[in-house]
């Protein structure tokens, strides 16, 4: 082969590289190892983590320990999906294209909105993309309800520095929406797990001619009114709960849905159905003129590689649930969460942060001790007891309860937390 390319040595193929930037000496990385050594190394690292087969998980805040049926990854893991890339050649990619079409359909069905896409990175960046859709035409201000997760607001702020907006956090449910306001962002359920008087927020948004953006929980939509029903113009969510593993934070997927008028402002890949030269129906990437590879500096999103594999898993998972399963899932989560709240608030000194506000599967507790200390102590009892919500006070603990948590586990958590707090 070297002869064919007219090189005397492999090294000669690197002659274009100026001598004084050629790397002298080693990279400072060890040399290669065998597969069996690699497996031992990584198994060793994995064992240094306390995983959720060992710890009973009551942590949430956007990422949840819902049950993932075996078939989801048995199918999403099929290598024809797994090892393919963006379907640039639709004739070779009908499989992925159709799954994404089904995914878009399901997200529209869930949200009660009209158009979705082939996935974004995660919930926080999905919110950023939604704001990019809303900003423009003299509307540059971004109002954010104080029920929105601070992590999301932080992410908005980072991207806003480039795009030229600054998220403005408001309290209550009646923001002042002037003609310069691009959007009003409300989380429902909010970061405390609580249900917002969201129609009021959105009423104010629409009166002011701004877009109403809802951050939703896909697992709630069997029992909670859909964003469409609530008047959202754009809905975004963290899609991890839909059949994706927790993976310490990623890969997850960002869900987004909007009204048809906004289809040309949508970020990312969109799959559409069309016909081939024989009139056979098939799927393609469509409206690509929106995207960076065509629109370049005029594109209003730069996303290229997305989270398609996670969207495939989400599609299969939603197929597994079906409408009945989604309803039952919601019923189970809210019932188990309500039971957990009632048990935990029986512990002396423990109370709900918002006692009179309805919640879905997550709630915020005020503890007689710093939440981080309580969480650390609960680890030794075999529980990941929740997520401290420092922004709401160092004594605030956010507790999430999915359909997986049995009465026994909840009772045991209550007992353990009681002991931990008594021990203080």
């Amino acid at each position, binding site marked *: 082969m070297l002869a064919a*390319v007219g090189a005397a040595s*492999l*090294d000669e*193929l*690197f002659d274009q*590289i*100026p001598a004084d930037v*050629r*790397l002298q000496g080693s*990279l*400072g*990385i060890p040399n290669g190892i065998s597969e069996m050594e*690699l*497996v031992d190394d990584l198994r060793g*690292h994995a*064992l240094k*983590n306390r995983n*959720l087969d060992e710890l009973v998980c009551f*942590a949430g805040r*956007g990422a949840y320990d819902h049950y993932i049926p075996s078939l989801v990854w048995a*199918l999403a893991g099929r*290598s024809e999906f797994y090892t393919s*890339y963006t379907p*640039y*050649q639709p*004739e*070779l990619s*009908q499989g*992925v294209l159709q799954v*994404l*079409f089904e995914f878009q359909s399901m997200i529209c069905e*869930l949200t009660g909105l009209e158009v979705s896409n*082939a996935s974004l990175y995660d*919930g*926080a*960046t999905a919110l950023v993309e939604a704001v990019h859709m809303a900003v423009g035409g003299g509307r540059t201000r971004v109002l954010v309800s104080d029920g929105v997760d601070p992590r999301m607001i932080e992410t908005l702020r980072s991207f806003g*520095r*480039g795009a030229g907006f600054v998220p403005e956090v408001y309290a209550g449910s009646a923001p002042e929406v002037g003609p310069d306001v691009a959007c009003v962002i409300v989380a429902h359920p909010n970061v405390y797990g609580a249900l917002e008087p969201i129609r009021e927020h959105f009423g104010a948004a629409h009166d002011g001619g701004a877009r109403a953006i809802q951050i939703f929980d896909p697992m709630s939509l069997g029992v909670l009114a859909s964003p469409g029903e609530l008047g959202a113009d754009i809905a975004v969510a963290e899609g991890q709960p839909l059949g994706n593993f927790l993976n310490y934070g*990623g*890969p997850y997927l960002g869900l987004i849905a909007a009204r048809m008028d906004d*289809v040309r402002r949508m970020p990312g890949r969109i799959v*559409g159905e069309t016909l081939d030269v*024989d009139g056979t129906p098939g799927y393609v990437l469509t409206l690509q003129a929106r995207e960076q590879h*065509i629109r*370049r500096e005029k594109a209003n999103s*730069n*996303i*290229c590689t997305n989270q398609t*594999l996670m969207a495939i898993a989400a599609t*299969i998972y*939603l*197929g597994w649930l*079906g409408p009945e*399963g*989604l309803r*039952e899932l919601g019923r189970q989560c809210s019932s188990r*969460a309500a039971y957990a709240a009632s048990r935990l608030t029986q512990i002396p000194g423990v109370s709900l942060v918002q006692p009179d506000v*309805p919640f879905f599967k997550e709630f915020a507790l005020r503890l007689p001790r710093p939440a981080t200390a309580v969480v*650390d102590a609960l680890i030794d009892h075999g529980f990941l007891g929740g997520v401290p919500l420092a922004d709401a006070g160092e004594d605030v603990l956010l507790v999430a309860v999915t359909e997986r948590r*049995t009465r026994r586990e909840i009772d045991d958590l209550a007992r353990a937390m009681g002991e931990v707090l008594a021990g203080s």
Partner: protein
Amino acid sequence: MIGAPIRTRGPDASTATIMDRSVPGRRAFGFAALDVPEATVPPAYARGAAPGLPEVAEIDLVRHYTGLSQRNYGLDTGFYPLGSCTMKYNPKVAEEVAALPGFRRIHPLQPDATVQGTLEVLWRLEEALCALTGMARATLQPPAGACGEMTGLLMMRAYHGDHGGARTKVLIPDSAHGTNPASVRLAGFEAVGVPSDTRGLVDVNALEGLVDDQVAGLMLTNPNTLGLFEEEIERITEIVHGVGGLVYYDGANLNAIMGHCRPGDMGFDIVHINTHKTFATPHGGGGPGAGPVGVVERLVPYLPAPLLARTDAGFVWDRDRPNSIGRLHGYNGNIGVLVRAYAYVFAHGADGLKSVSELAALNANYLASLIREDFPLAYAGRPMHEFVATAKPLKDATDIRAMDVAKRLIDLGYHPSTVYFPLVVEEAMMVEPTETETKATLEGYAAALRQAASEARTDPDLLRAAPLSTPVRRLDEARAARHLKLRW
């Protein structure tokens, strides 16, 4: 071929969706019986009509999605030489280790003390990436390359804010990938194009004319989009540094140079890496990937928060970073992808990665040499890990376009290369074979390309009609955009 006609003529008719298989009352889901009092949602918040999801059993899901998978071509199916995408083989072991409960079943907000294994993996990976690129520190947070670009550009912005004030422009070669200009705009800069010279390299004189004190920086990939090494790279970075600008290395082409040279040594200040390219993390039908970003010492303060730190108490997330640009992901990035990248980096090691680049270059040059007559290189220089050939001579002679050749390749058994990118080359064919392919595969692909070229002369309709062997033939994209059908 099995199953295929079965699926297209049989019950699993082609575009029938999972919704078309829905049968009222059929179900796959199952939950434990509710062993706590039932709580109901307040009516004001309750959902009206149930969403239109399918009612199917597990077997229906399995048949449907297995069937769809068989209507898809992946790297495990065959050769997949998409230029700029580095479609190299993804070792199966990476999937096995990433699926260990210790990695897959941990929550992003667990106490640091309970995830020391993962934090150490991330730490070692960051060290390796810095070693490979010559950077001081790196963030692993960006979930893909484009987000890495934003990260880098926002750091440029913050840096200039602290050093002489905001700047307005970022320079990009005209052959740059679309995400570069898009990111530049979203980061609040104006994108200014840098022309290429006759060699297909950055026109250094033009560059000198373009730089001024409003230039925040330059984005460049090296080897560049044409697969050519920017031989005057030191001069280029010098020019940009000369006006106080920063130089950004788009790492999409890092596969070409591992162990041979490092962006840091060329004068780059910021580097993003596409782990799904260079480090073989599976492309997943379009993602996920990961886009770690490394920087030189003076930019470390601006890296996103939190940043990993090593303390006597073990590894911790350092959130106290006053100059940081903040977070660009809801959590800590695509950790599962990074575990796979770690597996690839340390399985190959310094020696392995070096030869990866050598074999990538050898394969690209060998394939280019085999198709030279029919599809000459767009530019004369010796390509590295990938090359851009052109079908222009063929088009002039036969009116057959690169797209027709690509579609014919499908019937001949191959996934075609990238076509019509970069935009600066007419009838471009951007081919990246990667190091994992055999000589036989390269020769088979070259033979198919040559066959297509001769058929273009003898039987052009065969190419215009292609593909004929796929479940659907050429699809009407204009129609798709005109009559939007984006859901069931």
